[in-house]
């Protein structure tokens, strides 16, 4: 019950955060120097054409009115048109967001699947070779710039070993429209087209690995630190005295109480990757929202930029809510005490 109240409070806060975000992004978009109408029309357009477009876009109205129009349109899912692609921003974002989401989900899966066992092994065999190996991997993951790793993987796998595709989400010879969820892997599974699923997974592997390296290292180190802290607690010694076997003490009695910190960080990483994936998206020609965001910013494509920021923001807030819920499920102390999380 307390936990429900706590979640409800978090939901309200999240809405406030989103409203704040919309104001800030709106003001910033209007304050940056340069005229979007001029940018869109190019240097050869006449002053008259520019004024005309400014009027059509509402740029000549008072700021408060512009914001009101922005919010009114936003409330029924209209983010205006992109000056860059000349399509509805909502359509652009719907497609590119699905691409980024699929990439980021694969990344999180890899980071967890590799980082968690590494962290557990490092804690269980502290100061022995698994610990050293895990530290090495973590440091390498942390210090290797993502763009470098992305290029390295692309060169290695694509041009030297010739085993994995290095660009895009699918082989162009493999026409497939992901129109259920937008995630190719999931939609192709649902439609029973397993060859497409496999191809999509092969396309995902390299970019997801490049993006996962740093997070994986962080997960490993954080899991290790958390588990070592828990291992020094009386209740682990007590479990030993009561005859709980070693593996169960590590994988259940220690891991579960240690899991809140790694889970929280994973959520933050997950949410911010939506925006930060652009390097990998550019290198691997991944038609994602992060790359779309960069291109539209460079073009001062205001509607598109605001759309991307709002969607990223909403996603960030949403993921954090889910993490709050998961943290409460993992640790009853948080669930029972409610807000003191």
């Amino acid at each position, binding site marked *: 019950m307390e936990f429900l109240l706590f979640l409800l409070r978090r939901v309200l806060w999240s809405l406030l955060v989103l409203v704040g975000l919309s104001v800030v992004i709106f003001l910033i978009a209007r304050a940056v120097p340069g005229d979007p109408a001029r940018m869109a029309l190019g240097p050869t357009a006449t002053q008259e054409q520019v004024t005309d477009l400014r009027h059509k876009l509402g740029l000549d109205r008072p700021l408060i009115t512009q914001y009101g129009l922005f919010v009114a349109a936003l409330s029924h899912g209209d983010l205006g048109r992109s000056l860059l692609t000349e399509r509805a921003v909502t359509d652009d974002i719907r497609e590119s967001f699905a691409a980024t989401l699929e990439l980021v989900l694969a990344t999180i899966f890899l980071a967890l699947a590799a980082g968690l066992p590494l962290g557990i092994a490092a804690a269980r065999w502290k100061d022995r070779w698994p610990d050293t190996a895990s530290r090495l991997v973590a440091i390498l993951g942390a210090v290797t710039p993502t763009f470098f790793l992305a290029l390295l993987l692309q060169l290695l796998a694509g041009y030297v070993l010739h085993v994995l595709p290095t660009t895009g989400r699918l082989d162009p010879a493999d026409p497939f429209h992901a129109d259920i969820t937008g995630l190719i892997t999931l939609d192709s599974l649902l439609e029973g087209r397993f060859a497409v699923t496999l191809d999509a997974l092969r396309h995902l592997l390299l970019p997801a690995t490049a993006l996962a390296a740093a997070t994986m290292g962080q997960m490993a180190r954080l899991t290790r630190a958390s588990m070592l802290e828990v291992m020094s*607690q*009386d*209740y682990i*010694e*007590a*479990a*030993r*005295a*009561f*005859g*709980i*076997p070693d593996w*169960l003490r590590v994988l*259940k*009695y220690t891991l*579960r*109480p240690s899991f809140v910190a790694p889970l929280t960080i994973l959520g933050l990483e997950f949410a911010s990757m939506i925006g930060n994936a652009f390097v990998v998206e550019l290198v691997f020609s991944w038609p994602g929202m992060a790359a779309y965001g960069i291109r539209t910013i460079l073009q001062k494509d205001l509607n598109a930029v605001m759309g991307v920021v709002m969607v990223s923001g909403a996603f960030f807030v949403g993921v954090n809510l889910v993490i709050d819920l998961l943290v409460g499920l*993992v*640790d*009853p*102390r948080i669930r*029972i*005490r409610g807000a003191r999380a």
Partner: protein
Amino acid sequence: MTEPLLSVRNLSVEFTTYGRTNAVLHGVTLAVPERSQVALVGESGSGKTVTMKAIMGLLREPPARVTAGEILFDGRDLLRASRAERDRLRGTAMAMIFQDPMSSLNPVFTVADQMGTILKYADRRLGRQRGRAGRRARVHEVLAQVRMRDPERVAASYPIMLSGGMKQRVLIAMALLSQPRLLIADEPGTALDVTTQAQILKLLKDLVEEQHLALLMITHNLGVVRETSHYVHVMHRGRIVEAAEAQALFAAPREDYTRNLIASVPRLTGGTSFATLARTDDET
């Protein structure tokens, strides 16, 4: 006289930390006969917990090292037993109760989960067959034995929902799950308030007598010894300096150290007679 259930002979233990070696136990000898209540008493730092850990096989080696002695349980030398055999005894034939109930229960699992898991692996070590329902029933049974008024509710609780006294009783229940022959209690209840502690000690004494267990009571408080033990070993700086029947020890202590210890006894129950304490219930 028959062999005692537990017999520690001439046990010496040292610790090596940062290259420096410290002898902590110097030839400790003590015995706990079947169905007896024996105390090991000494000031803090005298080596009581190390003795207990050596008996339970909980010493980490390194940094600890047993340099001499034997620990006979039921006639078998545990120090020379295989690891599997020690694992089989721990938490089954010999069980222990920890000092601090606040930190000795896992905070993220329910009492039922933790007790069920202990029972499951104890059964497995002993080659005993018992299903999930059987374990559940046994958990509730033992919770009732430690005077929980509502075992179902306690079993479904997370530790954070229980009072200190209730947590201590859950820990006692955990130790009793597999009907051990020897129970070792390391300063039970010292983390609790005086009244609750007295109730816990009374409960422990009742249980030990009801279930015919042998009890090794470890404490720094001779007041506890007076109420709970037949026989007393006094430990000082890793040595047993005096061992005697409880009555004889209080009547005529031979060692100065014991005399000082007796002189400094705090009255445990603060005026209330131990025997008249109400049975513990869920309010503790």
